[in-house]
């Protein structure tokens, strides 16, 4: 398990009191682990934790509801940031 995924799933577990494992490819809104309030908290946590800033059009369910997609977005944003600097 990679580091981003571990941190994100720890955050989800802490925020929601979900005790089981979290499948990186599970839609956490569909399964009811996340609701419309804490999916926003998750996005803000990810920005803060990984030092990236998501654009408005990136803050969509497609990118945030599955942790695997969120990790991919974080990595993409970091790569963009690195190539700019």
């Amino acid at each position, binding site marked *: 398990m990679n580091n981003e995924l571990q941190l994100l799933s720890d955050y989800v577990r*802490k925020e*929601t*009191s979900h005790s089981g494992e979290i499948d990186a490819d599970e839609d956490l*809104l*569909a*399964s*009811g682990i996340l*609701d*419309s*309030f*804490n*999916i*926003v908290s998750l*996005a*803000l946590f990810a920005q803060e934790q990984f030092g990236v800033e998501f*654009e*408005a*059009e990136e*803050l*969509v*369910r497609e990118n*945030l*509801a599955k942790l695997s997609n969120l990790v991919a977005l974080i990595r993409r944003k970091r790569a963009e940031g690195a190539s700019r600097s």
Partner: protein
Amino acid sequence: MPASIPRYLTETAQAMPDKVAIVSSARSITFGELYNEALATAECLRGLGIAPGDRVGVCMEKSIDQVLGLLGILFANGVVVPILPRLKQPNVEHIVQNSGMSAMITDAERLGEVAGFADVTRLITGHGEISNDWPNLPYLRRFTQPRPFFDRICNDDAAIIYSSGSTGRPKGILIAHRNLAEGADIVSEYLGTREDDRIACVISFNFDYGMNQIWQTIRKGCTLYLHELALPNDLFAMMSKERITALPVMPVIITKMFDRRLKVSTSAFDFSAMRYVCSTGGRLSAEMIADLRGAFPTARVFSMFGLTEAFRSTYLDPDKLDTHPTSVGKAIPDCQVMVLDEHGEECAPNVVGELVHRGATVNKGYWRDPGNTAKVFRTHPRFPGETLVFSGDKVYRDDEGYLYFVARADDMIKTKGFRVSPTEVESEVVRHPDIIDAVAFAVMNIAVGEDVACAYTTVSGKPLPETVLRQFLKTSLPNHMVPAILVHFDSFPITGNAGKLDRSAIKQAAFERLGITAEAGATSAPVARS
């Protein structure tokens, strides 16, 4: 024509069978198909042993199959009982037993909440794949010939909707077929809902407000677009793509839609088809109104107000939103709202009295609770033989007849669109081993209606770290019930004789500690008393 939703759907399906009725991300359905599949669902339910008058639970995610479940129960002469999401087990158990539920329609997403009740009520899946465990409606429908056998009259029971009561146990409101049908007619009349409307449905079908969107759609032959709001960009993209014309919301939804932290720019979308936004479940702040108008300049903004016991009571004419921003407006069509003093006489303008509602939306009473029904559903000498709703809520009317809400009768906390019982919060807080007593109350927060606040005392005399206490509460309370504000007291004041907690003194002390005035804490608006 007697009024009921099954009759309305029968008419609309005949008049426009090929018109699209409902669209979800998964599929869409025409009025003709909706009618046939609802009848097939009813036939399946009958085959599964559902008899006329039986209460049938619906515990499902928002979907076309959920709508078919609701309609199927109505067409089967049954009574719909929605199971609200994320209720604690004792509350679900209370609803199952209190309603005397013969069966419950559920789906994979919400099965976990109700699977434990399989030996008390019959579980049926209304969505998804077949399994060996439960009968599956989408599968059974394929082998079922639709055949109409709906025979209820308009006064018969159509639904029981449970909401939290002050005692902590949910109370069921019994709703007649004509209440649902007239709700569709009345609301579509004052909102001006019409056949070419495309309504974005972000609200839940577990409450009367959400269900009314289905009923209006069926009545007017317009189209309903189902959407589960999580991130505002997804909603805005759908609204723009589908050229949505109508958006029913609640204050908490507006707050989510325009969450500043998400940097949403609504100018990137085309909302030029928008005709109206309507909101109920709390007052609109100036900022919310500005956000709605900024995003949807072509839309009229309706602020509405209702009681659980009578669905909807008032709405404010959109043209009066600027001149009367704190008013709940005037009575909806076909209903009368009175402001009565303790002698049952109409109050003069600017004098506070009780809101009493008469007319078409008055529901039948509390299910299996004649005591509470007799307290609220009463007669008035001016209208012999007629049942009115005596809300207990305090309101007044200004010189032009506009109504203003002053205070609720109960101490329920209205947060994020939910009614939360302070008792229910307190009983979970005191389960923490270090906590002695707890008093929960509302603190005004216009973004979500009210925040749940809780004052508590500890054995150790020290405050608990907030994150620790919240973590503890999250294991047993749904998120919306976990107090946003926690206040530790060394000890609580008690009332003189009985040693009972002095709740109002505790609240006042907590307000002082939080640095808010009593007015900001209470739900009341400043009132000119004559």
